[in-house]
């Protein structure tokens, strides 16, 4: 669906930003309208995705991971095979093309684990646009390898020492930096969050996941999946794969949040399951917050899901019942990570392991006529050091 004129999906979304940014958001909105209606824009986007990113990404059946519990087909969309190792690049290619079209001289981006930062630094290098990345000081330490990769790609990484020194604060800092240089700077937001038109724009750039996957299911199996499963932090990979099936009411859509240590504990990142409606980073959606409205510190074993907000379209899909949002704990995600690696020869990102964990439970409830499609949003190389540091053995 399209958001309304003020950027709302139902009662979620909108534009809650300082006035200094409004003109830039309006400018972006106008550019999107022109670019999205221009076949040449999409041709270039698709050609970069084909030649540089390696799309279309394949789907394959994870038979050994799903067995023996499942008799349903367990099909995985391989976003992990994209250049830079995750779905993030679909979005940064799109936004870099827009930035170039608008004549912007600099890209800025927030990053948590560093995946979106790497994807932004990559397109900055490819298109010759300088890049500044804002990253929480804690994450800079935790993700030293990604910091080095971004620097290798020519980006400047700015550690952010305010607040909790993580993704939330990096995002706030990127907004502030954008406010200071709003004329020549393009803010590349990494998920379907932020003020209108970002949630809509990012979804449109991730929609290719769902469009391809739908076509691949029809060609290979002659039918649509019964269920589509994706992890949700901000929610861009889920928004992308859901978009391909949103008009197929028989396809059930499942968003899997990070419960962390449990949705009833303070150590969670499940905004839709444990949060309340509020305003964060420019839009109204579900937020993990105190009763007074202070944003809470979150926890997830997966840095990419460790965010107190969620895209407004997901809030709308939850309220409308079109998609259902469940959660998986740190332990369940880690177990899926190990098992998927051992049974399939593919190391999934910890984010994607949340989707894999829930999908296997779901597969056990479905009959052989069903097909379950899981978005493997990224590869897990980035998580190896963290997994290795866990006390539990790899077997």
């Amino acid at each position, binding site marked *: 669906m399209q958001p309304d004129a*003020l950027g709302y999906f139902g009662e979620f979304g*909108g*534009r*809650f*930003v*300082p*006035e*200094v*940014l*409004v*003109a*830039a958001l309006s400018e972006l909105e106008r550019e999107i309208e022109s670019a999205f209606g221009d076949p040449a824009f999409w041709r270039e986007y698709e050609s970069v995705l084909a030649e540089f990113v390696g799309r279309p990404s394949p789907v394959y059946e994870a038979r050994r991971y799903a067995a023996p519990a499942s008799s349903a087909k367990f099909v995985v969309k391989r976003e992990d095979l994209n250049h830079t190792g995750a779905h993030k690049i679909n979005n940064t290619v799109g936004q870099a093309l827009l930035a170039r079209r608008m004549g912007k001289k600099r890209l800025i981006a927030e990053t948590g684990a560093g995946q979106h930062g790497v994807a932004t630094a990559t397109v900055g290098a490819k298109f010759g646009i300088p890049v500044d990345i804002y990253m929480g000081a804690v994450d800079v330490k935790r993700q030293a390898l990604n910091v080095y990769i971004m620097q290798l790609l020519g980006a400047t990484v700015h550690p952010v020492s*305010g*607040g909790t020194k993580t993704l*939330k*604060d990096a995002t*706030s800092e990127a*907004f*502030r930096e954008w*406010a*200071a*240089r*709003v*004329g020549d700077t393009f803010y590349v937001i990494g998920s379907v969050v932020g003020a209108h038109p970002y949630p809509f724009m990012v979804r449109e750039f991730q929609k290719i996941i769902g469009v391809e996957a739908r076509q691949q299911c029809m060609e290979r199996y002659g039918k649509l999946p019964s269920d589509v499963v994706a992890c949700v932090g901000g929610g861009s990979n889920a928004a992308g794969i859901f978009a391909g099936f949103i008009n197929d009411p028989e396809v059930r859509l499942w968003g899997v949040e990070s419960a962390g240590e449990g949705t009833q504990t303070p150590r969670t990142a499940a905004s839709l399951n444990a949060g309340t409606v*509020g*305003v*964060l*980073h*420019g839009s109204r959606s579900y*937020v993990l*917050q105190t*009763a*007074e*409205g*202070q*944003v809470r510190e979150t926890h997830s074993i997966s840095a990419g899901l460790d965010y107190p907000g969620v895209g407004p379209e997901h809030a709308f899909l939850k309220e409308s019942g079109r998609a259902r949002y469940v959660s998986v704990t740190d332990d369940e995600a880690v177990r899926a990570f190990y098992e998927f690696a051992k049974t399939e020869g593919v190391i999934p990102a910890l984010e994607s392991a949340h989707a894999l964990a829930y999908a296997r439970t779901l597969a056990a409830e479905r009959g052989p006529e069903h097909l379950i499609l899981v978005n493997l949003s990224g590869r897990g190389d980035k998580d190896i050091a963290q997994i290795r540091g866990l006390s539990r053995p790899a077997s």
Partner: protein
Amino acid sequence: MARLESIFKPGGLAFIPYIMAGDPDLDTTRAILTALAQHGADAIEVGIPYGDPLADGPAIAAAGARALANGVTLQKVLALVGEMHASLPPLILFTYYNLVYQFGLPAFARAAADAGAAGVIVPDVSLEEIEPLRLALGAHAIDMPLLVAPSTPPERAARIAEQSGGFIYVVSRLGVTGSGRAPDTEPLRAQIAVLRAATKKPLAVGFGISTREQVDAVRGLADGVIVGSALIDAYAGARGEEAARRVRAYVDGLSASV
């Protein structure tokens, strides 16, 4: 209703300092408010701490973090305002939308009115989203000054001016609050010319004002000047009477509205 508008005098320059309530504790805030009232403040913006202040630079963000660390809440700030407002110039609450939204807009407006606040500024609500809050506050005769940025196009600036209550908060330059970067004089003059043509409401300039020279530069151009981050820097690290002494010394140096 005209409580805020009445602080602006023809040919004068109203001085509107901003402080963060509860930085580092509420007793210090009491002492600072009294000092500001005695040293020429025509109105005072009272910041209510919020953990994710998108419009604020490091000085105010850090002040908010200190207040939050000390357990200061919206309710406590309202209680402080209620206790002190009678002996102070008009008080303007300054905070972010999520705190107001969670409180409930009508309940917040009623509580702010009961506390004696003259105005409320919420910098992260765009013109398109302003209506429910403006109406709720209007029902209690509380003014809601709106911000106009250098990037605001003329036609939009005129619409903001029309909706703004008490005065129009003219942002002196791009970016967030903070004294690190001075006002951009030429775009500021141009924006003020646009606003003068569109409205008779008073204009107050803020963001990046920290020195006597910058205050003097606003004199004759606008009707009021807002000083926040530099004032917070002046008392940061001090408490109680020592903080108030530093505030008096800094404000006397600015010689605003004198």
